[in-house]
C-alpha cells in the first residue's frame, strides 16, 4: 500500500486512489465543485488544486492518483492563493442573488467563500445577463446566471441515466447548460440533478421558494415506497414561531449508500413525501351504532384482549382473522408471528398490499411495499386477502389500509358487516374507515424505528426521522401490549420494549437475520 503525506501527516492509502480521496480519508477536506465521487473526474472547476512536492505547477487533487512517497500540501500559500483566484473568477460572473436563492445555506460556493475567500470584489465590469428560469424537466428549473458549469448534471445524464438529455452549448463565457429544444428531461431520476447541483443553478420546482434550508431539520431514514430500501434524508420543518406550519416535510434527499442506492433515489421516492403529511389518520376512535367515540389505546387493548380471550377460551380460534401487510417492519412481522401464530395458535392470516406496478429496471421495484422480503424470511407465505374468505369471523385485526385498494369494496362491506369486531391499524385515511369498529392510527415508516429487509435481502435498521403525532402507537408496541394483555409467553415478551430488543430476539431465532 502506498504511503503518502498530506500536510505532513503520513497516511497509508490504496493504490489507484486519488489525492482527494486520500485526503478525505485523512480528514483533510479539499474544496471541490465539479468533482463528484460517482463520476470520472472532470477537472474543470480548478478548485481542488494542491501542491505536490517536486512538481512545478499545482495539480488537481481530484484526478491525480497517489504514488508512494507523494508529499501533498493542501494549505501552502500557493494553494490558498489559487483557491481564492478560482473563487474570484466564479463569483465575478455570479449573480450573488443568495437572498432569493434556494441553495443559500447549503451552497458550496457560499461555503467556500466563507472558508477560503473573504475578499472584496474587484469586478467593475457588467455581468452577463442570462436566462433565470429555464424549464429543464418535470420538476427542474435552471438558472443560467448561477450556473458554474461544473457539468455534474450533464455527466449524471450521460453516465448514470445514460439518457444524454443535456449538454453544454456555446463557447467560452457564453457556455451554458442546455437541453434539446423540444424535449424536457423526463426520467425517473431527474430529481437528483437538483440535489447534485453544487450551487443554486438547478432548483427543484417542488422546493423552490417554499422555505429556507437552515430552518429545516435533516434526519436519516429509509424510503418505504418500494422494496429497494433507498437510504434517504428527510428534511422537515421543526416548526417556527413566526411561520405557521402547513406541512412538516419539505423534501426528501438521497443519502449515500454504495450497497443500495449509491448516491441516488428515484423521483417516485423523492416526490412521494406528500403522503407523509396528507390524509393521515389522527384520532383513535370507536365506531359504535354509527357514533364515533374517542377512547384510549389502553381501553382498546382491553376490549380486543377480552374478545380474543373469550374466543380462544371457547376454542374458536378459527373465528379470529389477521390481515397483515408487507410495509410492517421485520420486528412487527416477527411479533405478529410469535404472538398470533405461535402464541395463540391462530391460522387465519391474509396479506393485503398495494397492487404491484411497473418497476423502472433500476432502483424502483414493482413491489410498492418496503418489506416483502422480510415477510418471506420470517416465514409468512400469506394468501392475498379475498373478501369472501373473511366470512364467518368474529374478530378481525386489519393492519394497513390496503384492503380497500383491492377490488370489491362493496363485497367487502357486506362481509365486514357480518364480522362482530373489526380493528384497523392504519396510518392513512381510506375507504376501510367506515367499515370497522376501531381505528387505531399508526406511524408511517419515517415515524417509527425498526428494520426492513430490502429486495436483495439487505437488512437496514432505522430510527424515527419524524415525530408521530396521531393518537395511536406503532404496531410493534400495539402487538407487545396485546401480548401482555393476553399473557402470551409473558417471560418471553416481558423484556422487550424497543424495536432493538425485538430485533435481537429475531436474530436469535431466524438465521437469516444473523448475517
Amino acid at each position, binding site marked *: 500500500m502506498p504511503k503518502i503525506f498530506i500536510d505532513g501527516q503520513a497516511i497509508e492509502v490504496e493504490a489507484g486512489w486519488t489525492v482527494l480521496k486520500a485526503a478525505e480519508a485523512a480528514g483533510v477536506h479539499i474544496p471541490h465543485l465539479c468533482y463528484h465521487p460517482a463520476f470520472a*473526474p*472532470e*477537472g*474543470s*472547476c*480548478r*478548485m481542488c*488544486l494542491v501542491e505536490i512536492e517536486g512538481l512545478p*505547477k*499545482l495539480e*488537481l487533487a481530484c*484526478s491525480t492518483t497517489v504514488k508512494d512517497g507523494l508529499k501533498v500540501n493542501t494549505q501552502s500559500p500557493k494553494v490558498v*492563493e*489559487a483557491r481564492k*483566484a*478560482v473563487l*474570484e*473568477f*466564479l463569483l*465575478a*460572473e455570479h449573480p450573488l442573488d443568495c437572498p432569493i436563492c434556494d441553495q443559500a445555506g447549503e451552497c458550496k460556493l457560499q461555503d467556500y467563500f466563507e472558508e477560503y475567500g473573504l475578499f472584496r470584489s*474587484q*469586478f*467593475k*465590469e*457588467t455581468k452577463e445577463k442570462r436566462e433565470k428560469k429555464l424549464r429543464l424537466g418535470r420538476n427542474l428549473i435552471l438558472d443560467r446566471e448561477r450556473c*458554474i*458549469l461544473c457539468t455534474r448534471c450533464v455527466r449524471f445524464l450521460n453516465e448514470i441515466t445514460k439518457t444524454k438529455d443535456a*449538454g*453544454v452549448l*456555446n*463557447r*467560452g*463565457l*457564453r*457556455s451554458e447548460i442546455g437541453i434539446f429544444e423540444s424535449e424536457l428531461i423526463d426520467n425517473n431520476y431527474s430529481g437528483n440533478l437538483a440535489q447534485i447541483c453544487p450551487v443554486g443553478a438547478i432548483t427543484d420546482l417542488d422546493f423552490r421558494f417554499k422555505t429556507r434550508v437552515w430552518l429545516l431539520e435533516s434526519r436519516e431514514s429509509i424510503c418505504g415506497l418500494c422494496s429497494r430500501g433507498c437510504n434517504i434524508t428527510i428534511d422537515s420543518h421543526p416548526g417556527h414561531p413566526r411561520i405557521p406550519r402547513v406541512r412538516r416535510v419539505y423534501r426528501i434527499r438521497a443519502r449515500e449508500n454504495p450497497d443500495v442506492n449509491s448516491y441516488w433515489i428515484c423521483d417516485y421516492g423523492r416526490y412521494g413525501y406528500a403522503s407523509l403529511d396528507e390524509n393521515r389518520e389522527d384520532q383513535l376512535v370507536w365506531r359504535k351504532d354509527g357514533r364515533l367515540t374517542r377512547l384510549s389505546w389502553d381501553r382498546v387493548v382491553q376490549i380486543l384482549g377480552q374478545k380474543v380471550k373469550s374466543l380462544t377460551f371457547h376454542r374458536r380460534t378459527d373465528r379470529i382473522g389477521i390481515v397483515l401487510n408487507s410495509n410492517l417492519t421485520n420486528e412487527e412481522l416477527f411479533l405478529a408471528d410469535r404472538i398470533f401464530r405461535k402464541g395463540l395458535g391462530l391460522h387465519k392470516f391474509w396479506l393485503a398490499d398495494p397492487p404491484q406496478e411497473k418497476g423502472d429496471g433500476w432502483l424502483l421495484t414493482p413491489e410498492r411495499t418496503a418489506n416483502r422480503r422480510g415477510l418471506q424470511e420470517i416465514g409468512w407465505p400469506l394468501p392475498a386477502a379475498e373478501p369472501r374468505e373473511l366470512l364467518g369471523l368474529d374478530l378481525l385485526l386489519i393492519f394497513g389500509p390496503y384492503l380497500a385498494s383491492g377490488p370489491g369494496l362493496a363485497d367487502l362491506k357486506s362481509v365486514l358487516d357480518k364480522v362482530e369486531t373489526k380493528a384497523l391499524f392504519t396510518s392513512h385515511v381510506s375507504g376501510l374507515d367506515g367499515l370497522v369498529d376501531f381505528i387505531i392510527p399508526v406511524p408511517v415508516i419515517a415515524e417509527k424505528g425498526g428494520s426492513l429487509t430490502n429486495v436483495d435481502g439487505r437488512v437496514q435498521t432505522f430510527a424515527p426521522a419524524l415525530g408521530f403525532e396521531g393518537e395511536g402507537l406503532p404496531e410493534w408496541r400495539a402487538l407487545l401490549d396485546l401480548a401482555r394483555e393476553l399473557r402470551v409467553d409473558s417471560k418471553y415478551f416481558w423484556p422487550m420494549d424497543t424495536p432493538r430488543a425485538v430485533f435481537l430476539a429475531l436474530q436469535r431465532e431466524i438465521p437469516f437475520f444473523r448475517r
Partner: protein
Amino acid sequence: MAFWTGTRSTGSWKAWYRTLNEKVLTRHFGVEGLHRIDIYLKYGGYGAAEKALKKMTPSEVLEEVKKANLRGRGGAGFPAGVKWGFVPQNIPKPRYLCVNADEGEPGTFKDRYLMSHNPHLLLEGAIIASYAVGIHSAFIYIRGEYEAIALRLEEAIGEALGKGYLGEKILGTEFGLNVVVHRGAGAYICGEETALLESLEGKRGHPRLKPPFPASVGLFGCPTVINNVETLSNIPFIIQNGAEWFIRQGLPKDGGTRIFGVSGQVSKPGIYELPLGTRLRSIIFDHAGGMKDGKKLKAVIPGGMSAPILTADEIDLPMDFDSLVGAGSMLGSAAIIVIDEETSILDVLEAVAKFYSHESCGQCTPCRIGTSWINKIVRRLAAGQGEPGDIDTIVRLASNIKGKTLCPLGDAAALPILSICQKFRSELERYIPHA
C-alpha cells in the same frame, strides 16, 4: 558546413544566400504542379517512404527520428521520436495517427503552404510515421477554413491510392495505411491535441484531462500519435538523408529548419524556411525586407500570438526553442508578428484579449471567466474609461490564469497579456484618464 555547431548570427548577404540553398521543406515550392503526384515523383518523392518500408525496420525508423532531434513544430516543441516511442506496442487495440492541420494560432500560416504546395510530402511523412509506430489509419484534422486545401489533400490521397502509396500493401510490402481528411468547424481550441481528438470523435471540442496522454489513450480510447503538419513533412528528409544531416540543418538539440511565417508591418511578409537558430533580427531585416515604409520597430511576437512579446531591443537572439525560453518567450509555431511604432500597444492587447476570450472553450473556470474579464477591462480601457489600478488587475488576473487551467490555452492567453502589461506598462497607463 562548419557552422552547424553554433548559432547563426550574421546578417550578411552571404549568409542569406547560403540559406537559400539550405531550404528543405520549401525547396521545390517554385515547381509548377508540385502537388501532382507525377511531378512529386519526378523530384524524388516517396523515395524516403520506399527506403523506410523496404530497407528499414520500424524500430530503425523510430531510432533515426529520435536521433534527429526533431522537435514538434506545432508549438510545444516536444521531440517527435520520443512521442512515437511512448505508444505501447503490445496491446490489442488499433493505433491511430492524427495530423494536426488545425493551424489556428494567429500569425501562423506555414502549414497551409506546405499542404497546398506539397501535399504528398505530408502524406509521405505520415506513411513513414505510421510504419514506425504500427499505425494503419491516419486522420488529417484540418481547420474548416482551409476548404480548398482539404480538397487538394483529398485529391493527393486519391492519387497516392492510385499509385499504391496508400491503401493496402503499400509498395508491395505488407504495410497498409488509410488516410482520412477531416475538416474542423472553426475553433482555436481544436488545435489542442486532446480537444482535436474529441472533435474528431464527433464530440464537443473540449480538452481532456491529462494523464492519460494520447500516446496511451487517444482517439476512441486507443493509442494515438498527434503530429503537426510541418513535423511530419520533415520525416521523409530525415529518412532520406539521415539524422546527422538533419541536425546539421539546424542545431544539435533542435534538428532541421523551421518555416518562419513573418507577418505585420514588414516589407515582405511571408514564409521563410531558415535553419533553427537564425537570429530574429536577421529574419526581420534580411529576409523579410525590413520594416515597411521605413518605420521603427516597436515589438515582435516571436512564436504566434500566444508567445510573450519581445521589445525592439530584445530581437538579437537566435530563433530556437531554448534561446527563446531563455528570453522569456517561446518559439511556438515560429509565427513572427512584427509591430511598428505607429501601432498602439493597446490595440495589440485588445486583439490578444479579444481573441482568447472568444476562443476559450469555456470548460475550466480560470480561462472561461479570466479571459473574458480581462477582455472586458481592456475594452473599457480602449473606450477611454480606464481606471487607475486596471492594469494591476489585468496582471493579477492573468497570473491567476497562468498555470492553473486544464489545457495550455490558459497559459497561451496569460503569457502574452502579462508580457504586454509588463513591457509596455507606461504606454498602457497613458490610456487611463487621470492616472
